[in-house]
């Protein structure tokens, strides 16, 4: 007997609304379908109404966990448009906050994976140690989330000796705790039994379905924007790309823990080799007409911003391709032939940031293969017109 279970849009397993509709046969999933758009806020349209400086704060608020990645990707693009080069110290501080954000995001993910698997003690311990990172970020930038440390042309705040020493001391504590979590997360029998063999994505599938980030690297493909297309100071900083070969959720956990340890090394290198000098250069108010693509390795994968300017002080078009959007197709493939009990884990393994991925909808007409972008108001009128003519159903079903 097969019936369809909706997971979402409101569900305790999901941190943000997304509609996953799985067709199950007992406990095994046969088909999966994703419904998006519940979190669409019109960020790209709003960005066209605000100046270059105001947009930094708008881009930050696309996401709470990876806020610095969106702001930095945008600022890198705008600096290329305005043809200004930020000073070395500014770049070092920017990348320091990037790596701290990667640490906090991976620790958050570890806790969430523990919570989805029911391992609440692990969740509480990891998040207690994440507080150390949040406190460091609060001391550097003035806020725990939405750091707003970027300005066009560099950064806004400087580091002093006391803060550097505080960060280096906290790094020691974090390294020790992370080594313990690595041992625990990969050897606790009930936890590993939930993670191993779940959400299998072969190497060929991962490349073909354009997966990004740890989802891709856990299938053995060593692709990382920091190595393939180095931006800021990544060509000077020594680090390794972390991969795993097991192609399942356990592999993704291992990749993230290895990246955590790599980030500690990068942070230590940056702090010990921080150059002296100014932290920013002055940016003009307008940018020349041009277009630019900016890539960045967010904790979840590759983040792409496309910015087009037309000579005024506001962008003409801003397009965001967040990493979670690229991982959706791979998720559908992973969900098939799994158990219902694994749905939260598989979904959490791609580290979903639904609000990063909600952008406008393109409707493709199946018969004529024509594309059109539809505004919300015309969709609403269309739906009201169609609904008026249909009889009210007592048990409505989702039309698949």
């Amino acid at each position, binding site marked *: 007997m097969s019936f369809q279970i909706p997971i979402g849009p409101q569900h305790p397993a999901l941190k943000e609304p997304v509609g996953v509709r799985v067709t199950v046969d007992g406990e095994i999933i046969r088909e999966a379908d994703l419904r998006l758009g519940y979190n669409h806020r019109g960020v790209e349209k709003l960005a066209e109404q*605000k*100046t270059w*400086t*105001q*947009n930094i*704060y*708008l881009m930050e*608020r696309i996401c709470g966990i990876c806020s610095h990645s969106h702001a930095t990707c945008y600022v890198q693009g705008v600096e290329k448009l305005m043809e200004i080069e930020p000073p070395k110290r500014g770049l070092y501080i920017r990348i320091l906050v990037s790596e701290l954000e990667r640490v906090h995001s991976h620790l958050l993910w570890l806790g969430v994976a523990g919570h989805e698997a029911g391992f609440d*003690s692990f969740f509480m311990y990891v998040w*207690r140690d994440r*507080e150390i990172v949040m406190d460091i970020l*609060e*001391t550097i930038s*003035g*806020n725990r989330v*939405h750091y*707003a440390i970027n*300005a*066009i*042309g560099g950064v*806004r*705040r400087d580091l002093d000796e006391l803060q550097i020493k505080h960060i280096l001391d906290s790094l020691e504590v974090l390294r020790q705790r992370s080594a*313990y979590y690595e*041992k*625990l997360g990969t*050897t*606790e*029998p009930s936890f590993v039994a939930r993670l191993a063999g779940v959400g299998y994505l072969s190497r060929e599938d991962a490349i073909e379905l354009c997966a990004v980030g740890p989802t891709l690297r856990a299938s053995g493909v060593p692709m990382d924007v920091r190595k393939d297309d180095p931006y800021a100071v990544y060509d000077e900083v020594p680090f390794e790309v972390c991969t795993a070969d097991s192609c399942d959720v356990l592999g993704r956990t291992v990749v993230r823990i290895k990246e955590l340890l790599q980030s500690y090394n990068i942070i230590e290198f940056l702090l010990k080799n921080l150059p002296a000098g100014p932290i*920013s250069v*002055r*940016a003009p108010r307008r940018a020349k007409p041009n277009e630019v693509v900016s890539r960045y390795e967010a904790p979840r994968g590759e983040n792409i911003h496309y910015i087009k300017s037309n000579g005024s002080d506001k962008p003409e078009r801003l397009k965001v391709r967040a990493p979670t959007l690229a991982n959706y197709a791979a998720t559908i493939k992973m969900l098939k032939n799994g158990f219902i009990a694994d749905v939260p884990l598989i979904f959490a393994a791609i580290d979903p940031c639904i609000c990063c991925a909600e952008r406008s909808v393109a409707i493709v007409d199946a018969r004529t293969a024509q594309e059109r972008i539809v505004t919300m108001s015309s969709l609403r009128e269309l739906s009201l017109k169609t609904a008026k003519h249909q009889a009210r159903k007592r048990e409505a079903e989702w039309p698949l």
Partner: protein
Amino acid sequence: MKLGVFIPELLRHLFKKPATVDYPFQKLAVPPDFRGSPYLQPEICIACRACERDCPAEAIEITVTNEAEKKFNMVIHNDRCIHCAQCVDSCPTDAMQMDNLFEISDYNRQDMKKRWDFVRAVVKPKAETKS
């Protein structure tokens, strides 16, 4: 079986102080550079309107009350403010500053707005301005 890997650590925590604090009866201190709400020092403001232009949330409103006597009125809409401190960076004379209050929620929007009436100061702006 490796079931006992976690148990000693768990039992050790029975005797440690908890990591959480009993808010609101106990509060943690915020660092000195914390970005709270913006406020104006009216003696040094030159009413250049740079903060009004750069605010992403349109939370600063400067109106002229008396043109001849150079009197201005500034309203900071703290309910719209996103606490980004761009106004502090844009201000050429350091008249805008941030405090470090974070418990600013209220039942009424109108109570959250702050107002100043001031006369425009005659102060030389600093040589380099932060962008």
